[in-house]
Each structure stands twice: as C-alpha cells, then as structure tokens.
C-alpha cells in the first residue's frame, strides 16, 4: 500500500487525514471489535494511525481480512468513526476483491440487481472447493426459481469504474 493507496482510502471514505487526529487512542474500538472474538488480537485504532502517519497497510492484516462490518467500533467510539468503511476502502485500494464480490458487482452491472443464481454459478468452483456442499440440505429453503429482471438505471451502471482518482481534483 503506497501513498496513492492512502489517498484513495481518504477519497473513498470522505474522511480527511486530520479527521483521524481526534482519535484518542482510547482503544474502546479494540475492546468491542468482533474480530477479537476470533482471537486474532486486533486494534482498529492502529489502522487509523497507519493512515494518519502514512504507513503501509498489508493485505494480510487480520482486520483487513476479517472485519465483518458490524459497526460495533463505530457505536462505541467517542467520535463514531466509521472504521468498517475505512477497512472496505483499504480492501478496495489493495484490489482485494474476492470472486464472490466480483460476481456480485458484475450482476449489478448487467441487471441492476443481484441475481443470486448468477453469483452461485460464477462462484460454483469456490463453493465446491470450499466445502460448502455439506450445507446444501440446510439451504434448501433458500432455493426457488426466478428469472433475472433487468431494471432501468438512472446512471450508467459502471460510471465510476473507469474513473481514476489521480485524475480528479482533490482538495
């Protein structure tokens, strides 16, 4: 993660670098973080500090990999900092999209909605290799046949895809 990646994170979240200077280091976020229930010992504040001082964030940082977007940290933080959104922006800046996430976005581009059978088809190999087949009996209630429905979009669906953050004006 280089300097440009940091800029992307700020741009994506709408936070400015100085917004993180209010962080008191109280670590209340760490005391409630769901990732710590996985015994991975993380401190969300450390991630904010890395962004504040411009330090590199690694792809295999447990918070980057396992943050569940539960917003427990946000609810507990005196500044209500939306840390999961920072994490999601970090993931995106590092190009860490899984095949599942790619299929989701692709579906949205094609139909304007997520068509689950398409996502399942696109990720079938992962589901097979990942050992998800054993859950199929429990998932029968989720199955049902419906055709995809293409909706009208007000804006071209991948409008923001082609935009390059470095080309746009930054204040």
């Amino acid at each position: 993660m280089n300097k440009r990646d940091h800029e992307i994170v700020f741009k994506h979240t709408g936070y400015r670098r100085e917004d993180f200077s209010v962080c008191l280091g109280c670590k209340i976020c760490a005391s409630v973080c769901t990732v710590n229930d996985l015994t991975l010992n993380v401190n969300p504040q450390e991630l904010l500090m890395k962004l504040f001082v411009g330090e590199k964030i690694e792809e295999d940082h447990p918070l980057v990999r396992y943050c569940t977007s539960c917003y427990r940290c946000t609810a507990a933080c005196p500044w209500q900092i939306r840390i999961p959104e920072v994490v999601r922006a970090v993931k995106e800046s590092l190009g860490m999209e899984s095949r599942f996430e790619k299929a989701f976005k692709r579906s949205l581009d094609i139909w304007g909605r997520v068509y689950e059978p398409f996502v399942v088809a696109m990720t079938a190999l992962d589901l097979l290799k990942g050992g998800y087949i054993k859950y199929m009996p429990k998932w029968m209630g989720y199955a049902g046949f419906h055709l995809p429905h293409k909706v009208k979009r007000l804006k071209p669906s991948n409008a923001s895809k082609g935009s390059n953050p470095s080309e746009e004006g930054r204040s």
Partner: protein
Amino acid sequence: MMEYGYYPGCSLTGSAKRLDQGVRQLCKKLGHSLTEIPDWNCCGALEYGDRNELVSISGENLEKARGMCKEIVVPCPACYKNLKDADPDRSFNILSPLELLSTGNLSQIEQKRDLKGQVFFPYYGCLLMRPEENSIKNRNIMEDVISVFGGDVDGEKMKDRCCGGNQLFLNKWATEKLSTLILGKTKGTVVVFCPFCHMAMQTFAVGRKVIYLTDLLLYVMGENKSL
C-alpha cells in the same frame, strides 16, 4: 391504515423470498398498502469500498421514489442502512417493517394462537442497531412481540452481536465461530429479521429453529400452520 413505498431489495426476490412474503402478508393484515418503487435497483450491500459509489447506487432508488412516496418500507437491514446513508437530510422516512409494529397495534391483531411455554431468542444482529444514527427506533420490539403473545425471551446480551454473516462466502470459519458463539450463549428458537443472519444461523445452528419475526407473527394470527 397507511400507504407506503416498498423497497424489497435483491435477496428478498431470491433467498429471502420468505421474508418478502411475510412482510407483504403482515402489512395487509395491519391494513397497510405497499407499492414497490418502480425499477428499484440493488442498494450495493456491503460490497463497495467507495462510499460515494455506494451512496450513488442506493440514492438512485430514492430518485426513483421521489414524487411517489415519502415513507418507504425496507425490510433488509443492509438496504435499510444504505438507503438511510443515501438520505442524510432525511427527506424520506425510511422504515424497517419492525418500526410499523408497536405494543399498541399488536393488541389489535386478531390472535388465533399463543406462544406459551416456548422460548425464543430475538436476534437483531448489527445493521438494525448500528451505526446509531441509522438504528431502528424501537430496539426492543421483537421482545415485545414475543412477550405480548406469551412467549419467553432469552439472550438479551447477545441480541446485537455479530453473526459474521458477510464473511460466510469469504472465510466461513469466521462466520462459524461467531455464530456458534451466539448460539452457545442463548436458547430457544432464533428469531431474526436479517437475511444474512438467517443464513448464518441456519447454517450453523444444531437442533434449533431459525425463523423470521414475520413467521412468528403469521403463526400467531393463524396463517402459518407451524413455527
């Protein structure tokens, strides 16, 4: 009696069809009418790292609803959060179906069965409760519903913990661990309102039923044959 706009969201057209049908049936019983926002599109769920992109995708639905309705019923908690985030001025009233319920209007419901002798764990999960500015207003409504009809409530401390549902297809061991933790500290039928929670709980619960609150209400009203 109210007329609402309705935003089902993608999962309610597929894997969470049951919630969609439940909400529609329940609203009919309560005398409310739901009109789908024409050509509604996906809210973006939790898949976008760019907040501006997410808000723009979600916000498109509000554009499509403009002039048609001010009050929009949004059952899926992820959609509910995103649509609220896309409307910082609160020019719409984005409502979870849970917010259409109150102890007042529950007593008007024609009750055909009760829940006596049964234990339930009302489980809200994350996005109905957090971030706080987006949270539902009646944060005990599922407990109230269960109690009004004579059921016993368990698991107060775990009701807003995270099931890890959005890691299910990325790191399923994490979802398994988080869901199992919640299940281990609670007892009774798991009552949810979120499609993610339903799937995570359903996948990892052993010998426990997982139902939507709508299933429970329709059972009490004599619609569904069993829980």
